[in-house]
């Protein structure tokens, strides 16, 4: 663009160095001149004292009679006792799914779609209840469960309902048949949404399923079971077995399961892949990540700051595709850090049920411990920790202030391991080539972010990033129509969109 010349000190030009943090520099004050009153979501939801498994269309007690507590991570109160699934429970569930398969898979496709539309509508009707439940069980801000998790879960059922009777057009000239009984194991970061990601394509393609929710967040999946019963989904089409790692292992090992879909850690994903080798089971794995978020000097910086925040602090950083490695072009590093500091100060951390909370509770005591260990390791290896120093955190519950590290070397543990918390590693680069090389220098390859106002650079960089999703001038955008999945140790297979159907069909 043209530059204004003449006698004015040039109004159109900026020099990022003028924003360098230094003592005596002008500072903004984010105090309490006008603060927001507490705005807790007050809807009360009923939670049973104890839950069984959902098998064959009914809630049944666990065969071995064992239960475990599920805890509200913001208060440490036990919300309910959950059935601990054993191999016998898994066996019953797989048998129910197998029994339901012939009728369900031969149902006219548009009839299957009708059931799925009903599920979607019922999720919408009970959205508020589901959002509160999700927030109480998992610690995520009500703003996110209300505006993202629950609406998108409904959206996945709507979207895949639309595919049910159009599979012959999705794969023209091929004969598409269901795979059979699907074993689906989901993580604790997006409990209901991940259940929808898994169940919706499976059902649309005529499969039946056994779903195992995460140990720490089973409540919304069990509520979904109530919804499935309410809408008269034929018994056995969806079975839900709760439990921990061993329950999942039993499901993976069961000979009646034809396909495994797993979302979770790379460590467990590798074990699953090894254990089913030679069994003929299909598998899709959506695993960990250490995704790079790359800010070029010609980016719209104020918007890029929002992308950093969205990338790493969304859902307390419990996001497999979190933009946890930030690469900033050296010429704008100082400015980006000043602005990141400013932005961190307006993030509201605390009671997840408060509608104004931006960052909620860490999902579990275990996860908090793991994050704290990484904070210690980061400091010990020589990086500098910067924390948001907002309002005091609640006394009970599991909390971690949003934070970032500077002085990070590529070899540092915090630059290589997935932390799965609100912890960002900030690094700088000088040229696009260097940015691409360093971004790809990771065992993972789930997602990446590119920030530049220059269109040609977007295409040049995006096509060379080894990641399943590359977001340009945005981050963490999802749509049921858009396939999601990883490269390298982030897993294989795609979920969502036309690509996601493939894993749930035998094509001949």
């Amino acid at each position, binding site marked *: *663009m*043209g*530059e*204004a*010349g*003449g006698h*004015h*000190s*040039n*109004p*159109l*030009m*900026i*020099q990022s160095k*003028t*924003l360098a943090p230094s003592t005596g*520099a*002008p500072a*903004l*004050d*984010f*105090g*309490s*001149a*006008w*603060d*927001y*009153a507490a*705005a807790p979501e007050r809807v009360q939801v009923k939670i049973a004292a104890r839950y069984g498994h959902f098998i064959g269309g009914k809630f049944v007690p666990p065969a071995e009679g064992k239960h475990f507590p599920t805890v509200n991570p913001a208060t440490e109160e036990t919300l309910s006792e959950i059935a601990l699934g054993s191999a016998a429970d898994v066996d019953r569930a797989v048998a129910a799914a197998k029994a339901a398969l012939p009728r369900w898979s031969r149902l006219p496709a548009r009839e299957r779609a009708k059931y799925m539309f009903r599920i979607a509508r019922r999720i919408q009707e009970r959205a508020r209840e589901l959002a509160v439940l999700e927030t109480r069980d998992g610690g995520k801000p009500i*703003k996110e469960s209300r*505006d993202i998790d629950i609406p998108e879960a409904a959206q996945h059922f709507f979207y895949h309902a639309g595919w049910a009777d159009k599979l012959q057009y999705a794969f023209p000239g091929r004969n598409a048949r269901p795979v059979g009984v699907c074993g689906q194991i989901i993580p604790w970061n997006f409990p209901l949404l991940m259940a929808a990601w898994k169940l919706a394509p499976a059902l649309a393609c005529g499969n039946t399923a056994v779903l195992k929710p995460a140990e720490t967040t089973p409540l919304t999946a069990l509520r979904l079971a109530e919804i499935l019963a309410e809408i008269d989904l034929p018994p056995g089409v969806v079975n839900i077995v709760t439990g921990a790692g061993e329950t999942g292992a039993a499901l993976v090992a069961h000979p009646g399961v034809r396909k495994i879909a797993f979302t979770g850690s790379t460590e467990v994903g590798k074990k699953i892949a090894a254990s089913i080798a030679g069994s003929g089971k299909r598998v899709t794995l959506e695993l960990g990540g250490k995704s790079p978020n790359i800010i070029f*000097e*010609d*980016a*719209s*910086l*104020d*918007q890029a700051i*929002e*992308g950093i925040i969205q990338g790493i602090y969304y859902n307390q950083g419990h996001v497999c595709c979190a933009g946890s490695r930030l690469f900033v072009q050296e010429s704008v590093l100082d400015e980006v850090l*000043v602005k990141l500091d*400013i932005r961190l100060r*307006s993030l509201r951390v605390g009671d997840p049920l408060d*509608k*104004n909370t931006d960052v909620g509770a860490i999902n579990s005591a275990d996860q908090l411990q793991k994050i704290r260990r990484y904070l210690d390791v980061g400091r010990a290896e020589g990086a500098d920790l910067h924390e948001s120093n907002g309002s005091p955190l609640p006394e009970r519950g599991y909390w971690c202030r949003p934070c970032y590290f500077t002085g990070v070397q590529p070899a540092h543990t915090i630059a290589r391991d997935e932390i799965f918390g609100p912890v960002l590693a900030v690094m700088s680069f000088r040229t696009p080539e260097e940015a691409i090389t360093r971004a790809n220098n990771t065992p993972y390859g789930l997602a990446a972010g590119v920030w530049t*106002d220059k269109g040609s650079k977007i295409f040049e960089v995006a096509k060379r990033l080894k990641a399943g999703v590359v977001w340009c*001038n*945005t981050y963490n955008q999802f749509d049921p129509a858009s396939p999601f999945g990883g490269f390298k140790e982030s897993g294989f297979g795609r979920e969502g969109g036309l690509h996601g159907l493939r894993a749930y069909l035998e094509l001949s």
Partner: protein
Amino acid sequence: MRARTVDRIAADARAASFTRRSIKKESKLAGLKLALSMLDLTTLEGKDTPEKLRALCRKAQRPAEDLADLPHCAAVCVYPTFVALAKEELQGSRVKVASVATAFPSGQSPLAVRLAETRAAADAGADEIDMVIQRGAFLAGDYETVADEIEAVKANCGSARLKVILETGELETYDLVRRASDLAIEAGADFIKTSTGKVAPAATMGVTLVMLEAVRDHFLATGRKVGVKPAGGIRTAKQALHYLVMVKETLGDAWLTPDLFRFGASALANDLVMQLRKELTGRYAASYDVTES
């Protein structure tokens, strides 16, 4: 070194995020009062009369006769011909008189005429001058002329503070809004203002955010605080609270004052008073319970 760019989609998404804050109870009451105190109660019509202006001045001083502890508005905003009368009506109050000038709203007059008009308004006692930039020159890329003219108007303001109207509805892109903001700030604007109210779209959250960010960058670089005034299109108390959330979370506490943030509006006053009455008395008012203006 380069010109600032703004990504419209991301800026609009950020602006929309402020509307999802929940403002209740004591923070709602405080926010409504703050918004009222930031109001430039405006009448800019060819059919304006002294009687209309007298009513407006009374309302600016006492937004509701029966509610004693409401703040007064920040200013009344009028054409230059009404400055003397407004000054007289507002004598003894702390309500300021703002006058549009520089061939408002188009700015299409010779510079000498625009400067003379500015001087006339200032001489008549205007505390604040709301000028318009030459959008034609700006869109043609003649930034030098636009900056020179702002400086010239500023030099003719006397002690009055200068608000520079960008008329963002005619600039169209956020890149140009940002560019015009930087230019006006650098040329000496005390305030940057979105719109004349005569062009649609007038103020939007997205445009105002871009301007707040320009003000923030200037402050971080120089320490000088420039004010922001969205004008036109802000009609409800709820909208006003959304804007205040945006100011609070973008620029912080220092800008939550009429010295640095204003609303250019007329209908907004009535909704603020109605909502305040509800908060203070627990009863909703009917539209006929507040004065037309």
